[in-house]
């Protein structure tokens, strides 16, 4: 079977209403396993809300969210927490624990969820930090002592610590300079390549159309809570949808 032929995330008629306002509206689409899929759209289009539904942090007003064969809507308590261990997430500003060093941040999920000895933890953290091009000079620095790009790399290493099936990126290049933006984008592609053997899926929320076209396999364009276009990257570039064109031609 082709790596990308099966759906890892399926949304069926998902509607989310906040105070009488529909943020997601009858949303239906699938994300293929092993792909890099980017959710594009203007601010307030519902991208972050959609991501929270995939994670089970929000429940839809109606509809189903099927992730890795499980209906997230039906999951509660411990089952939901265990389910979330399938994900890694790189937050917009990395969300590193500010009282912990780089090393401790990356070691955190390993110590929390595995029976690794301290030696094994050390080895694993070292591997992860090397994979995101961080030297051992940064290991004992606090997040406040790191640059924006470094923080993103530590965040990525932490997200990859438990070898997630799905890697989520929430606006990974927001607030970064062009050079760091390029580095983060390359890192996303490299991470996907490194984890291709185990068919890790990457879902990215972004505003950065240029980078999106370069790194994505598929692009979904969200507008007012609906997916108005969902195409492979090369086709998306040529889309005749006026909303997409407005975004692409910027």
């Amino acid at each position: 079977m082709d790596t990308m032929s099966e759906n890892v995330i399926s949304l069926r008629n998902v509607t989310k209403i906040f105070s009488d306002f529909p943020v997601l509206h009858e949303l239906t689409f699938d994300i293929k396993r092993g792909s890099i899929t980017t959710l594009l759209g203007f601010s307030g289009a519902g991208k972050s809300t959609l991501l929270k539904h995939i994670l089970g942090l929000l429940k839809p007003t109606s509809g189903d969210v099927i992730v890795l064969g499980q209906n997230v809507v039906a999951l509660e308590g411990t089952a939901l927490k265990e389910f979330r261990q399938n994900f890694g997430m790189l937050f917009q500003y990395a969300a590193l624990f500010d009282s912990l060093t780089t090393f401790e941040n990356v070691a955190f999920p390993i110590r929390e969820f595995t029976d690794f000895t301290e030696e094994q933890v050390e080895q694993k953290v070292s591997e992860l930090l090397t994979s995101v091009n961080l030297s051992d000079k940064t290991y004992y620095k606090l997040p406040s002592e790191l640059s924006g790009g470094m923080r993103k790399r530590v965040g990525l290493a932490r997200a990859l610590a438990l070898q997630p099936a799905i890697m989520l990126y929430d606006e990974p290049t927001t607030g970064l300079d062009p050079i760091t933006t390029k580095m983060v984008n390359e890192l996303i592609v490299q991470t996907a390549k490194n984890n291709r053997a185990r068919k890790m899926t990457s879902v990215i929320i972004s505003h950065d159309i240029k980078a999106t076209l370069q790194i994505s396999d598929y692009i979904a364009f969200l507008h007012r809570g609906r997916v108005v276009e969902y195409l492979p990257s090369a086709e998306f570039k040529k889309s005749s949808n006026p909303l997409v064109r407005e975004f692409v031609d910027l």
Partner: protein
Amino acid sequence: MKRLKKVAKPIEHIGDVVLSTLKEMGKMTKFLYLFFYWVTKPPYRTALFFEQLYFIGNKSLFIIILSGLFTGMVMAYQTYFGFKMISVDSLVGPVVALTMAKELAPVLSGLIVSGRAGAAMAAQIGTMKVTEQVDALEVMGIDSFQYLAVPRIIAGTISLPMLSIIFQLVGNTGSWFVGTKALMIDDAMYYSKLSDFMFIEDLYQGIIKSFFFGFLISLLGTYFGFSVTKGAEGVGKGTNLAVVWGMITILISDYFLTSILIRIL
């Protein structure tokens, strides 16, 4: 119609206040329920508990000792000059000790810890919330309440009685020093009156109160931390609410606790 609207406006306002108060109380009750639910569930975060015990207990020690010492010294002075007028100045020791044990030590150490640790709890959790660190925990499959609130609440509940006992000890030492060295009350008389009027049971009331205040302070500190919503402004607001409500609830609950404990003990 205009007149009706004018009459309806204050009623609407009262209704809004009542509804928002009830909503807040409901949220707080849910928060309290979550504590009792998670406190029994593994994993038990002992390292985090000791970290908080150190922060709330050990790091409050200096200010508690300083406040206790000067409160005891001032109390000795004030009591002495009042009692001297009716020639019972030898009772300074037991009066200061009883006041310290039953009221001043639990209430003052509660107010101090509320201003220091309660505020810090709200600020730490609030900052973690606005910088998505709480979300990061949840995405990892870790319950943020169990990880952040439970160790703080247990540590706060245990720390305050210990701090209150230290407050008492230091306060009584201050009182003894002022009473016997500055006001020249006979040393033997001071001790004899103290042992005549002060019993071990008198300590219980203060200790029970301290447990309760410690629980309240840390519950409110963590609650307002988790309630933070809008950036730095929200963190400031949450911290402020944690301190204000921490202090108010200590003073109000002190009255009710006193009226109950005085009958039981």
